[in-house]
């Protein structure tokens, strides 16, 4: 099971994602350089957080034009697993691989905190390790994490169970008071219609290594791994 982590100028969570796959999951992982179009033999792609191209213009606006993204799109169209975290989510919306966009936090400030999330759909390759309604804690760290999409898009996504994570409190209550950044319907993470491309603002990699006091996010990577193992098994 080979993993690839994209590397843009300004990516700063690539090493963290690499660390989790390499050391926590113990699986083969390599970096994919933004100027390359060859993805090699990867089964899953992580688009890490950071400030690709310094967030110039808009977060993700330049990165999504990189040569590597053409290949990532083709990979996803063939059913490959792609997860964009934080800036990676922004890159995925900019590239229209996911609907909507991420605008500035309602509090107009960068926000770094440990955040409770409610699992909304556990029936995806990214969330199978959880149960619907579980409350997990993942760190957030962003300035533009306020998810916005047209009302009809939101209705459609809600109807298709495309919302994976919502911001909540420790009891799992979802309300304006538990919404850190102003996202519509407290949306923290979504999946595309075909179920193989995820974007999320919270950082699952940062809560995958128990020594840091948080490990709820590991389930995202384990879910992906199990899905790939089953798929791989079937392929053979």
């Amino acid at each position, binding site marked *: 099971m080979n993993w690839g982590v994209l590397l843009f*100028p300004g990516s700063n969570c690539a090493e963290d994602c690499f660390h989790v796959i390499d050391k926590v999951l113990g699986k083969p992982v390599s970096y994919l350089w933004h100027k390359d179009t060859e993805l090699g033999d990867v089964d899953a792609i992580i688009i890490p957080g950071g400030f690709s191209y310094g967030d110039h213009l808009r977060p993700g606006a330049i990165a999504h034009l990189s040569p590597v993204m053409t290949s990532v799109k083709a990979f996803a169209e063939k059913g490959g697993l792609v997860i964009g975290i934080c800036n990676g989510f922004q890159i995925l919306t900019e590239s229209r691989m996911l609907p909507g966009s991420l605008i500035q936090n309602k509090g107009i400030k960068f926000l770094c905190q440990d955040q409770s999330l409610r699992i909304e759909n556990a029936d995806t390759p990214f969330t199978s390790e959880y149960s619907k309604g579980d409350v997990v804690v993942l760190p957030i760290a962003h300035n533009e994490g306020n998810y916005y999409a047209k009302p009809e898009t939101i209705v459609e996504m809600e109807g298709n169970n495309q919302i994976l994570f919502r911001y909540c409190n420790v009891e799992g209550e979802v309300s304006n008071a538990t919404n850190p950044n102003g996202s519509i319907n407290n949306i923290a993470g979504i999946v595309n219609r075909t179920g193989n491309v995820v974007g999320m603002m919270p950082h699952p990699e940062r809560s995958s290594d128990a020594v840091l006091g948080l490990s709820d996010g590991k389930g995202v990577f384990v879910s992906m791994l199990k899905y790939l193992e089953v798929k791989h098994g079937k392929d053979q």
Partner: protein
Amino acid sequence: MSAKQSRVEEKLWIKAGLTDSEYELLTSHMKREPNTVELALYAQMWSEHCGYTHTRPLFKHFLTTGPRIVQGPGENAGIVDIDDDEVITFKLESHNHPSAIAPFQGAATGVGGIVRDILAMGAYPIASLNSLHFGHPGDAGHTRYLISEVVHGIGEYGNCLGVPTVGGELRFANAYKGNPLVNAMCVGYMKKSQIKKAIATGVGNSLMIVGNLTGRDGMGGASFASKDLDEENEEDRGAIQVGDPFMEKLLIEACLEVFEEDYVVGVQDMGAAGILSSSVETASKAGNGVEIDVALVPKREEAMRPEEVMISESQERMLLIVKKGKEERVNKIFHKWDLHAVVIGQVTDDGIYRVLEDGKPVAEVPVWSLMEAPTYILEGKEPAHLEKTRRFKNDDIEIPTDLNQVLLELLGSPDICSKEWVYRQYDHRVQMNTIVKPGSDAAIIRIKGRDKAIGMTMDSNGRYCYLNPRRGAQSIVAESARNQVVSGAEPIAITDGLNFGNPEHPEVYYQLEQSIIGLSEACRALDTPVIGGNASLYNQTPEFGAIYPTPIIGMVGLVKSLEHITTMEFKNEGDFIVLVGETKDELGASEYLDQIHDMITGDVPELDLELEQKTQAFILEIIRKCLVKSAHDLGDGGMAVALAESCLSGGLGAEVSFDLELRSDSLLFGESQTRFMLSADLEAADKIIDLAAEQGIEAATIGRINSGNQLIINNLDETLVDVSITDCDYAFKTGFDKMMKTNK
């Protein structure tokens, strides 16, 4: 009019910031009169900021060596050994004047500069901290603006770099109203074999400039930082640099990639006085000369004069001394990161600092003379206020009737209240090493793949140093070390930020000298050598006068096993609370006097450095024996505040009782030194008390943790405090927001 005539009539050197005697000295070094380019070189290199003209003679007091010290002062940053052939490099730097005038850019470029110092050592930056001092935000909208912008600037730069901002401090006093302090610290990690030096060895090797283009921003920043802030230099906005964290991120990646190859013999960050000081320092260390052609420097502006190119403080630039013949390889790596690496000159053997413009010499001076800034040993005079403040007696004040209210007020007061408003704007988790987050006694950053971690702190207490510069400075070092040991870290070394007013004033010079003496005494006693630092003098304005003498201590400690990591919050109901150290009748200089009685007076609490060392060793010993569940040092606000903090962070109640013939406010809020608040289960608590007795250290079980919602403090059968944890929590967590909204 000839150049000489104009100098005589206008005294150009005075305008450049040099004195008559300095001018005389440099002409004797040069054996002729300087031209305007040469004059600019001396003016920058001989400023306090570059030349440490007032502070250098005082540095002789410092202990700078020790078994773990790999590199003391003199490089971009000091280095300490953390075993396993791994080292930590760290340093702090001030960016006070730029932040006073352009707070966002001033603070942002402060972070950028210190990160490059760490990078120049060959290290990967693993964490940042900052120590900020402002006037009281309730007093002025301008102060609130400064706070918001400085925090925003630090966050924007550090977050983009992907270097976690993990700790520090934010303190307030009127003394900083006109001249805020912004000191940033960076910590880097590397293998011992990866250490780089700032040295220009090898005649014929190339000087390459990498990173950003050179413009007119930050012109004369070093000399700007070396004079008082007044309205006239409010106009020195040209002296403010503009930061580009994206460029810095690329610079980090590219430099570290280049360092992996054997192409580079020396590295220097371009900070104060830009190309000039970076190249002079590297040449001087090697005993060589250098030759730089300003025409080769990639610029972003037209028609820059040679001296402008040399002293520009454009950000995100580094100087590499590259082996002859390897220039193209270096350039290739930088090009991969969409950066340039351009040869601007070479190392020469004649000891001359030579600036060329299109091949024609425009300045030629001996390298050594630029490094030999004249030093000044002045006569200090004890500040007049000390005679009055020392006369303070505790009996001068009455004990407030409602001590619950006093505790709540202190918990919500500016220096003590939660700073979450600040640190949630900083990415403190990136790089996935942050085990103990901001808001603790010390930040704890792990070393991946090892059973060890690094403790990091930044501390100061301007009020203490104002009331007793020598003992105040000692107390800060002691407190930093306490913050390390309660977290499970063995203090290793410090970097110091000397923030003072204008040293040419005898009272300020006295504060400077006494503080340095105090610092060095404490560092010797606690075996934490000084491995580098920064001096920022001239922090004063005509309107508000000099700042408090504010030495800031950045300390690094080693946690030898992750098992030793200890935090302040109470863990389990039923555990016993142990107080280590003696509580005396000391209210002088306290936060309590300042906040509750509006008095900045009295003497700083006594400090016995020998006892401090012994007690700290004891605390570390019992933590390493895993006897301690929580540990907290008693600092601002004294025992009651420490108890409340441990309760509210753990969500538990506590009841403690004393039998002390002591004023109740001294017991609750006095800041007697060398005290620690621990919690442990019954068996461990007994062991702690026994071990303390064996070592002659005062320790007593004072009460227990419970699952209730009250903090109760009794003395001699009288209940002094009985306050709900919910109220404490509310006061602590809303204090900052309230302060930012108040308009007095």
